[in-house]
């Protein structure tokens, strides 16, 4: 009996439990939360999703390029399946690269000028390089006439990819290429007012038509043939770097820089006794900043470097693109500069004259020359002038764009004056007395401590009434003095440009 009641009790309890919902319902009415909190929660999530969608839009419109054009992106081949890669042309329409289709339908990428444009145009296989790599997407996108595309769809033909009209100038490229002669080295020519790159030469070079046959040999060669030295080269700048040392000295002594005086006895001693010599132990006598720059007096600059402010110098070089990705859409390297307060005298002195640990690319130096010529303003350098469809209709056109104000006007003004003096009275007098006016700085960079092997440098620009200015950077490897080996190359370019082009 008692057991029975117990059971009944339990059942009732369970019943209560199950039926308790009615009580719950009565209780619930008063607990409705106010809507304010919900609004807040809703807005938080709205905000998150808006950011997400905004980012997605940004990615598809801007950031996308970087990933699509990455050589690691194997999806590029997918696009190529339906499109024959377009042509790469010079500024006057010469074909630098095109896809030839033989009768049996096999395709071959052909480079009519063989080695001449090897590095800048690049190659299409083995991971791609140069314009073939960086502009691959444009070349494998077809903006052909809609009807033609439709016709190709139906007949299962490949569409023709868009063509790229580059800013490259055949004549300048040829002069620069031949100017280097048997030497290794690099040349780059840029129009400061627009940023158009007219020529990029790098030696040793290769024949892109034979890239497959010679691939093994090319990648195993000790002199890095495939490397574009004009944009990726890491060279010791030598005296060309005095441009930066001068600018830093000016920054620190704006009112007194003209009073700088130094008596050059062919060498300057560091505190540890080492003596830094002038090239050829030449004694320049009494110099001021301008004549020291023009005659490239190492002793004077070593003397200056000892007292420079490390923070200021580093900041200046940072602002002049050291350690930065250079703005050209091609394989580039970052330049290196280091100058610390606790560096020894000797290191500071070496750095001041462009030896030390400093490394630059010819592209970088050419950009600095551009900025100096263009009153401090660097235009974004570019290689693709126009994109046209197979029919010749222009799809897009690059408009010259300011990249950055690298120098203040007074800074560029002084450099203009000093670089003019180099040509008038200094180390670049070979450029004097031409139909055009030249500005520049030579350099002779020692590349090993052990021997006297040097790279010859010239960085500068030329101008002539009725012509756009051009800036040039030349490195002639393992040759000798900049004035002797680099200037003639630059001169041939200036001659060609200013005397035959218009």
């Amino acid at each position, binding site marked *: 009996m008692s057991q029975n009641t117990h059971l009944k009790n339990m059942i009732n309890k369970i019943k209560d439990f199950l039926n308790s919902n009615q009580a719950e319902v009565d209780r619930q*009415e008063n607990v409705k939360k106010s809507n304010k909190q*919900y609004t807040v*929660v809703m807005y*938080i999530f709205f905000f998150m*999703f808006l950011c997400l969608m905004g980012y997605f839009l940004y990615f598809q419109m801007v950031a996308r390029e970087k990933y699509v054009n990455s050589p690691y992106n194997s*999806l*590029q081949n997918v696009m190529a399946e339906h499109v024959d890669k377009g042509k790469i042309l010079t500024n006057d329409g010469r074909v630098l690269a095109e896809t030839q289709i033989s009768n049996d339908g096999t395709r071959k990428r052909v480079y009519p000028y063989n080695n001449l444009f090897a590095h800048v145009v690049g190659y299409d296989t083995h991971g791609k390089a140069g314009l073939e790599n960086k502009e691959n997407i444009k070349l494998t996108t077809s903006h052909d006439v809609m009807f033609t595309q439709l016709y190709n*769809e139906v007949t299962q033909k490949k569409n023709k990819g868009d063509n790229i009209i580059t800013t490259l100038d055949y004549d300048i490229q040829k002069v620069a290429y031949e100017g280097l002669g048997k030497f290794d080295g690099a040349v780059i020519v840029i129009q400061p007012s627009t940023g158009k790159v007219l020529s990029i030469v790098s030696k040793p070079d290769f024949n892109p038509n034979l890239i497959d046959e010679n691939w093994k040999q090319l990648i195993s060669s000790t002199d890095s043939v495939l490397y574009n030295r004009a944009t990726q080269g890491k060279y010791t700048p030598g005296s060309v770097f005095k441009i930066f040392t001068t600018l830093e000295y000016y920054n620190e002594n704006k009112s007194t820089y003209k009073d700088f005086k130094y008596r050059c006895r062919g060498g300057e001693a560091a505190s540890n006794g080492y003596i830094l010599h002038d090239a050829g132990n030449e004694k320049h006598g009494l110099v001021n900043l301008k004549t020291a720059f023009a005659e490239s007096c190492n002793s004077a600059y070593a003397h200056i470097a000892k007292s420079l402010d490390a923070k200021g110098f580093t900041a200046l070089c940072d602002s002049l693109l050291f350690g930065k990705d250079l703005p050209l859409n091609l394989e580039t390297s970052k330049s290196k500069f280091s100058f610390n307060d606790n560096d020894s005298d000797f290191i500071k002195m070496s750095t001041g004259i462009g030896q030390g640990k400093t490394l630059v690319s010819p592209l970088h130096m050419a950009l600095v020359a551009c900025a100096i010529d263009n009153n401090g303003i660097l235009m974004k350098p570019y290689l693709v002038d126009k994109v046209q469809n197979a029919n010749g209709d222009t799809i897009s056109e690059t408009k010259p764009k300011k990249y950055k104000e690298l120098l203040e006007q007074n800074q560029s003004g002084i450099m203009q004056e000093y670089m003019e003096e180099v040509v008038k009275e200094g180390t670049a007098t070979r450029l004097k007395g031409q139909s055009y006016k030249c500005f520049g700085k030579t350099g002779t960079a020692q590349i090993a401590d052990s021997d006297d092997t040097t790279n010859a440098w010239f960085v500068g620009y030329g101008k002539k009434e009725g012509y756009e200015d051009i800036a040039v950077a030349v490195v002639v490897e393992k040759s000798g003095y900049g004035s002797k080996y680099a200037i003639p190359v630059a001169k041939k370019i200036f001659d060609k440009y200013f005397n035959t082009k218009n």
Partner: protein
Amino acid sequence: MDHLVMLISKYIMIFLFLIYTFECFHVFKFTENKEKQKSIYKKQRRNIFLLHFMGFLVIFISTLNPFIIGFYLMQVVLFSGIFLIYKMFYKKASELLLNNMCMFLSISFIIITRISVEKAMKQFMILVLAAIFSLLIPLTIRNVKFFRKFTWMYAAVGILSLLLILVAGRTSYGAKLSVSVLGFSFQASEFVKISFVFFVASMLEKNVDRKRLIITTSIAALHVLILIASKDLGSAFIFFVTYTMMLYVATENVLYLFGGFFSTFLGLFIASQLFSHVKQRIVAWKNPLSVIDKEGYQVCQSLFAIGTGGWFGLGLCQGRPDKIPVVVQDFIFAAISEELGGVFALCIIMICISCFLMILNISIEMKDSFYQMIALGLGTTYAIQVFLTIGGVTKFIPSTGVTLPLVSYGGSSLLSTMIIFGIIQGLYIIHYDRYIDNNKGSGTGKTNSQHVGGGINSESKYTLEEYD
């Protein structure tokens, strides 16, 4: 010629999906006009089937695999079945939510079949089971009123499952996520999400005193800590944000919200210092191309896919989504963006927002704070998960390795999301019932007045249930 068909169908699919997405929001304009709403929902269903058809047509043309036809028909039967059952038994459920669910499922099948027919088959089997199971849920939710009683059971089940994973779990991509039971890999955190929300809801539904708050927070923290110990930071984040939101709405104290934000950033900072795999993911997030051969590989492949796909996609079966590791699970969004296009992908985000709104809407409408909390919690887990997966795939945030609900491959994720949607539909039905009840006893119910004229509150424009 095939290519032409595929090209045309690509744009048709984008167009259909755009219209569908537009209607997801356009329908709110007609809260007063039930007939108009009904016709919109009908049009949406037609678009789902059309899009589904176009997708499988393209897959068939490019594979010429006759099995695809049979597989397609099986799916059509299943989707029709789901629609039919809802029409017959759950007239009061939210049709928009149902449509969105089926749209996601059909997109999921298109993209998974395109990547791997085998996986799609497996997913289909799981879906059949999940559909049958989840179709019972609205009924259960409606009729069983004592879910709120199992507070401690939810906590126990949740913590024990998570501990089991921690101890016996299989490690994948640096995190312990699942255990294998009878050949099925079982991802516990997907289900513990639900028990966790039920636990917190039953704790916070009553007036919250300090003691109760401390207990709840401790147990919630325990969940999160076990997940962190399993290195499943994605889930830990989902749990944490869900708890913060529920706590904030329950207590109406904005300080908890700020506290939550603050500790999120603090936690992320500590995690990034403490765990090597978190560090790696942050490196891969900052600059994936620089570490493409290691940590950044996955994200890079994903970005290549999304970028190359562009706005309109490479076309179904034209890309290489299989280049992305675990593409069918965590990176399904990248595969969709690659082949169906950025516009399509954006629409997916919009529809996820639409789902979230519908869940939040029922949370606001419910008169029972337990159900309110349930809907809020489940809605938050859903939204956060969508945000984490899409954000991770697109490199908006570091990748956390969570799935896109209903679209990603994976049984646990599919089943748990189907359950969540079932619960929400159950709440819509309960809400509808109460409305009718209150109307019948007109004048007696004090809540009645709040309902008149649909002027319930400022959010009433999101009210979509049918009151017929």
